[in-house]
């Protein structure tokens, strides 16, 4: 299969959706004209291709951007809006949490809000904690929202396509670090369903559940430990809501061990939900304590050595594995 960079795969998903359905439009700060004159960026070229009517650059107004999505989706459009960096979702959070997530409910099921919010995330670009702060656990905590978190170009494309046409509000997290990473990507309108985790590597000793770039730390750890005869099963969740409980629970029932890995802070992070779920529903299969490998209990520091220290690594995953074997 041909290889695309993740940024290009997202571009392709957006273009396919827009080609296919007039109701799809894009909005956000610099989604049309951008300071990044880079063909690998996710919205590159879309303004030229689809014109100003459908590719809307906005002012720096996150609440308005999210409100735009809420109102337009209620009127039958399929908005795909961008929040430039994850911490800025705070500014859109009333619109997302109190409106996008709740108005379908409040209407008694009469109204729908099929909007998609693309949000850039991740760390490793030394922008500090006001740019790097993963808040997927916040969004996953809110009934009514769906959360997608791809780790590779094929998923980024396929999950985004599904999200755009999903009848519920979906937050799609795009890790900046992935834009420049490439991988095989199917052509055409190939969708990846929400709620279906991907077993990246089968294994029998420990279940490692991750999403986004931390899956690579998990895979690296799995590779290294394989040589020692320790077999990790690495699961890439792909979406946090809906969550593919079956795949995770089935795996833990086999391995008896769970390690979760994510960049976000550990305390009340998504790993806590996974650990709790397993402690509730696969308790009798558990042979060892659960381990959570996560971002440190600190904001993301700027200094490069500290930023790397912050991020979950293969070493930290291996250490966690060793501590429960």
């Amino acid at each position, binding site marked *: 299969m041909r290889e695309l960079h993740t940024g290009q795969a997202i571009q392709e998903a957006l273009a396919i959706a827009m080609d296919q359905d007039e109701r799809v439009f894009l909005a956000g700060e610099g989604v049309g004209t951008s300071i990044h004159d880079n063909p690998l960026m996710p919205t590159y070229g879309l303004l030229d291709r689809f014109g100003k009517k459908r590719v809307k650059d906005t002012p720096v107004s996150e609440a308005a951007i*999210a409100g735009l999505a809420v*109102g337009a989706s209620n009127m039958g459009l399929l908005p795909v809006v961008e929040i430039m960096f994850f911490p800025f979702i705070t500014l859109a959070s009333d619109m997302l949490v109190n409106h996008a997530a709740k108005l379908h409910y409040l209407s008694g099921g009469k109204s729908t809000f099929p909007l998609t919010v693309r949000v850039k995330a991740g760390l490793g670009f030394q922008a500090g904690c006001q740019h790097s702060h993963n808040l997927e656990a916040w969004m996953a905590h809110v009934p009514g929202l769906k959360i997608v978190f791809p780790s590779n170009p094929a998923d980024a494309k396929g999950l985004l396509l599904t999200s755009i046409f999903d009848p519920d509000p979906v937050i799609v997290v795009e890790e900046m670090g992935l834009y420049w990473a490439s991988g095989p990507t199917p052509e055409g309108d190939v969708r990846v369903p929400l709620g279906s985790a991907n077993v990246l590597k089968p294994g029998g000793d420990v279940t490692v559940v991750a999403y986004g770039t931390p899956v690579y730390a998990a895979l690296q750890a799995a590779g290294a430990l394989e040589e020692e005869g320790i077999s990790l099963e690495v699961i890439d969740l792909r979406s946090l809501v809906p969550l593919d409980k079956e795949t995770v629970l089935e795996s833990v029932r086999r391995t008896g061990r769970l390690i979760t890995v994510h960049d976000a802070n550990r305390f009340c992070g998504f790993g806590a939900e996974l650990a709790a779920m397993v402690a509730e529903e696969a308790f009798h299969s558990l042979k060892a304590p659960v381990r959570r490998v996560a971002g440190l209990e600190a904001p993301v520091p700027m200094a490069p050595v500290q930023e790397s220290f912050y991020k979950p690594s293969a070493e930290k995953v291996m250490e966690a594995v060793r501590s429960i074997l």
Partner: protein
Amino acid sequence: MITRKPKGNVRRAMLSDMIFIRAFEDRLAELAAQKDALPGMQILATGQEAVAVGVIGSLNPDDVIISNHRSHGHLLARGADPNTLMAEIMGRATGVNRGKSGTLHLIVPEVNALMTSTVVGAGPPMALGAAFAQQYKEEEAITVVFFGDGAAAEGSVHEAMNLAAIWKLPLLFVCENNCWAGAQSLAEHCAIGVIASRGSAYNMPGELVDGNNPDEVLETATRLAAHCRAGRGPALMEAFTYRLRGHGEHDHQHYVDPEELALWKGKDPLTTYGTKLTEEGLVTLQDIQSMEMEAARRVEEAVAFGQSSPFPKPEEALEHVWVNSPRDRQ
């Protein structure tokens, strides 16, 4: 400026709608005073009926309205079914939103009352989206969003006005200035006296009207709606009026100057407009009486409908969270 008077039948209809809204809300006030007759808090628009009927009177059926916590008048003027509205306020299964919303976030898509939010200031950014969709789909329709003088302090309102103006969206911002935001007076929560003057901060028309005069509201709203409809961008109308019953039914207005209140009671749009139309010979006292009787009848019907309706099943609380409910969250 010479105000063209709206046609007589329109004006009679406005009076009749005002009478009905008042009757509906007076009945809510009565019920709210009884123990356990109504769930939650009741936030009434008593005294502000002229804004509702005047603005709604300026609209076409396919126009969209977005409302806020003080919504009954907007929705009734718009033609929402009083029975299912009352049932919703009572938290019944037959309610327009199946009892999930209650009085505070009534959503009546049947009459294009698409979104209502009790988060102060949340209407305008959502209205932006509705108006954008109208422009995008090249509809003739416009969107009207109601918000209070208090809401004008929220950042979301600023963002919505700025962007609506840049994109020239067909969006009429209606600020219902009832002189209060909770227990804070206009001077305490707003840096300026005339909110309409903020239109110039966004390069849009901003007009102040007497919100107790339905004719004036209708006339200005019609003119501004035409502006929006003509593709000339958004507009801001401030309707200056007064909150006669306090913020909600638990608020006894201890902080309100009784003289101020008395003054505004004297300007009650129901009586002043009734008198005006009577004086102009458009209605008789008898007409008004029959409007009142008809209103009372419809309100009683609504109350009876609500009270005789079942409560929703508890388990239904889990429905309508997602359209496609994730398996893991049921």
